[in-house]
């Protein structure tokens, strides 16, 4: 009988680059930067790594296909290196593969690395026509990510009868909170605090989402070295060990996009992945037990809806929690403690590992006082790859004993 991943693997070390418009760097440079920090943190040598999983999303303007270019860039010594790709869940998938291969007892030390170089397109937003396939191209709407996620807001407003002005207020609070957190983080892409008034007055990108409702399009890399708890304890005798409590992924079945049961106002996949993750981690009441979380705030409305789908806020009740400061840095479950996708930035293939990095540094209490979460024990990360009607949700829960 399968037992799940809980407490079977530990994080030995992590690295994360400064995110941002890294005009000076290629993906290879970013990967090397995160890797160097990670090796130093783990206190091991490169030759001790037995396998690697490398995540990149957009190969066309990045490093090309396969894991080979990054294996070469890091001069990994003829070990198995595999590329993972699953939209914005790409890095969490690399992490999951690394965790499972250690848990399977096949390897002792495995690298998971996510990297993305987005700022070579020449225009804002994500690159156009991101590999939707020949068939879909012929019948797809002329859509972009903000437009697809914006529809969550129109559907959410219709579903719960909440006027758009109130939703705009909550979205503005979501973004203002992330800006405040990002401003404190030297590795974050956007480091300027903004007011809710500024947010609401910003130019419209895709109704009802304005400029500040959208996350940063960034370059960056993040990585982790995974090992067994026994090896971790042996190598890190004077510190807490961050263990993996749960890993859950749910992929759309087609029901949301093609069937007629979905209301367009929530993420079916996130709800399922969250339930499975809590079960695996032994979390009964996430609202009380989680110390903090990093969720997929590609757009402010995504975060708002996600807080309900993670079963933290009641369905239709995220507004009250958000406006009440529940997810603020000093709230009950601080969310986007490093600035989130919104301000830390969103290099697609690196984001999952960046979120885990944020939990890792909080759990080990390595962050300065002004952005510290109080008494952190259990952190959750959440990626949402794709579009609201067709996506992959990936959740990781990490904790210290």
């Amino acid at each position: 009988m399968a037992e799940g991943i809980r407490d079977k693997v530990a994080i030995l070390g992590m690295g994360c680059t400064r995110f941002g418009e890294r005009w000076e760097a290629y993906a290879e440079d970013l990967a090397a930067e995160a890797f160097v920090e990670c090796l130093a943190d783990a206190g091991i040598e490169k030759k001790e790594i037995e396998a690697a999983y490398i995540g990149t999303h957009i190969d066309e303007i990045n490093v090309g296909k396969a894991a080979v270019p990054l294996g070469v860039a890091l001069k990994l010594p003829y070990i198995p290196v595999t590329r993972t790709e699953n939209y914005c869940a790409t890095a969490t998938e690399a992490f999951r593969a690394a965790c499972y291969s250690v848990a399977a007892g096949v390897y002792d030390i495995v690298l998971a690395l996510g990297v993305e170089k987005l700022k070579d397109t020449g225009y804002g937003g994500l690159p156009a026509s991101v590999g939707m396939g020949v068939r879909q191209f012929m019948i797809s709407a002329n859509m972009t990510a903000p437009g697809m996620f914006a529809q969550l807001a129109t559907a959410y407003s219709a579903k719960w009868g909440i006027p758009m002005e109130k939703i705009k207020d909550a979205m503005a609070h979501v973004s203002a909170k992330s800006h405040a957190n990002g401003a404190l983080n030297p590795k974050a892409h956007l480091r300027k605090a903004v007011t809710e008034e500024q947010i609401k007055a910003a130019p419209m990108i895709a109704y009802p989402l304005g400029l500040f409702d959208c996350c940063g399009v960034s370059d960056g890399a993040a990585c982790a070295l995974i090992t067994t708890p026994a090896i971790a304890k042996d190598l890190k005798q004077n510190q807490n060990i961050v263990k993996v409590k749960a890993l859950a992924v749910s992929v759309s079945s087609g029901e949301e996009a093609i069937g007629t049961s979905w209301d367009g106002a929530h993420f079916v996949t996130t709800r399922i992945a969250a339930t499975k993750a809590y079960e695996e981690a032994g979390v009964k009441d996430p609202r009380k037990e989680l110390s903090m979380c990093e969720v997929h705030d590609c757009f402010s409305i995504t975060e708002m809806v996600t807080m309900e789908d993670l079963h933290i806020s009641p369905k239709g009740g995220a507004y009250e929690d958000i406006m009440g400061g529940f997810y603020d840095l000093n709230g009950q479950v601080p969310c986007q403690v490093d600035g989130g996708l919104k301000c830390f930035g969103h290099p697609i293939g690196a984001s999952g590992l960046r979120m885990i990095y944020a939990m890792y540094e909080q759990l080990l209490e390595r962050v300065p006082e002004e952005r510290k979460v109080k008494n952190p024990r259990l952190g959750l990360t959440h990626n949402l790859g794709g579009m609201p009607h067709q996506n992959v949700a990936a959740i990781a829960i990490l904790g210290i004993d």
Partner: protein
Amino acid sequence: MVGICSYGGYVPRYRLKRSAVYQAMGWMNPGNIAHARGEKAVANFDEDSLTMTVAAGRDALAGMDRSKVEGIYCASTTMPYKERLNAGIVGAALGLNDHIRAADFSGGLKAGTTALLSALDGVEAKRLNHIAVTASECRLGKPASPQELIFGDAAAAVIVGDQNVIAEFKGSYSITYDFADHYRGQSAKYDRQWEDRWIRDLGYDQFIPEVVNGLLNKYELKMADFAKVLYDCHYAAARKKLNQLMGIAPEADQNNLQAEIGHSGTAQPLVMLVNALEAAQPGDRLLLVSFGSGCDALYFEVTGNIKNKAHNKGISECLTHRAELDNYTKYLVWRNILPGDAGLRAEEDVWTRWSALWRSRKTVLGLWGTKCQKCGTVQIPPQAVCVNAACGAVGAMEDYRFADKIGRIASFTGDMLAASSNPPAIYGQIEFEGGGKMMFDFTDCDLAELATGMVVSMSFRRKYYDEKRDISGYFWKAVPMKEVQ
């Protein structure tokens, strides 16, 4: 009895005031003030002669059994393809059978009536029945040219058959001359014309009476026998003179809609015919005359069936669905006369993969999805595995057409990031009556007037234009229907 069994019309939503065009370009050609009255109908940025053909064809086919249609004849001088049968695309969009005759009629502006005559001949000879005849035009005049003001975009369609005929075909007379008043060469974008005076005095003044008299003599008729004379001549003064000369009473002179639509080329006589049929009474005789490289004159008699035919929008209902295009430069960008910058995102390559389009032709051109034969769930795009989780049947699908279904808006947005020549790009999820849901572009609407739950109908539109390879790609969009909330 052979004749017209049904009709349909299409006038695009946008109208451009000719005074606005004159205000912008009159400095270059002040004499154009003579053409600056009224407005011209302007195709939306995602419309062309082909999509307007489909719209008019769908209107004409409303309430008819499409499986009975045995031919589709499409007239236009402005179709997107010189090689690739435009009527073939139209037939697929209309959901017609594959085993039918289809042809493009082009060359001169009388191609619309020639297509109609060919259909009438085919039915009369009992070789084919129920032939859809369409004419559609979207001609360009150079900025500051008289044609820019005179031309308008429109389409019309009639179904020719021998059952339930509403206007019986009684006879015709044709003349053909290589009279090059207007022409466009192989690669020309704009219409070019010779001197107005010559076109008026030698063209209209001689050819119209010549073909009309030919028909009257052939069938021993007098002008007074006709309730309406529908002839193509946009010169107001020449029209007055011709009416006098031929003895056409003011009430018999069918409005050419020059002030409302503009001259619609090959579609002009058919647009007038549809417009006349909308008001026709049983027993009315109609004389239809085209002009362009000669003339065709056709003579119809309206039957009692006109009283109980199915509802069609025709031309007059389209004329009431209008929005003013209050921006001349927007028109120039939409017609690719002014190369507006839609940003670097718009420069990404679009690839038409013909083998994939062939495989998906029913979905892309006809908006066909599938219906599960096991559980009855309808789904689009077509699925191999039934989306109903309780069913999950594999390979048990039959074709199901969504194009004629109405739907409701489940969610929507107006996107300023998406590359568009009519930003914001508006799109959202549509839930169809009877089941099925998909994300579609919206068109012919304004973001401010949208709401979830609003009813939409589907419209065949140009999805993209690949400038590098000269490919127009098509798919369906949702059009919010304000009047049926």
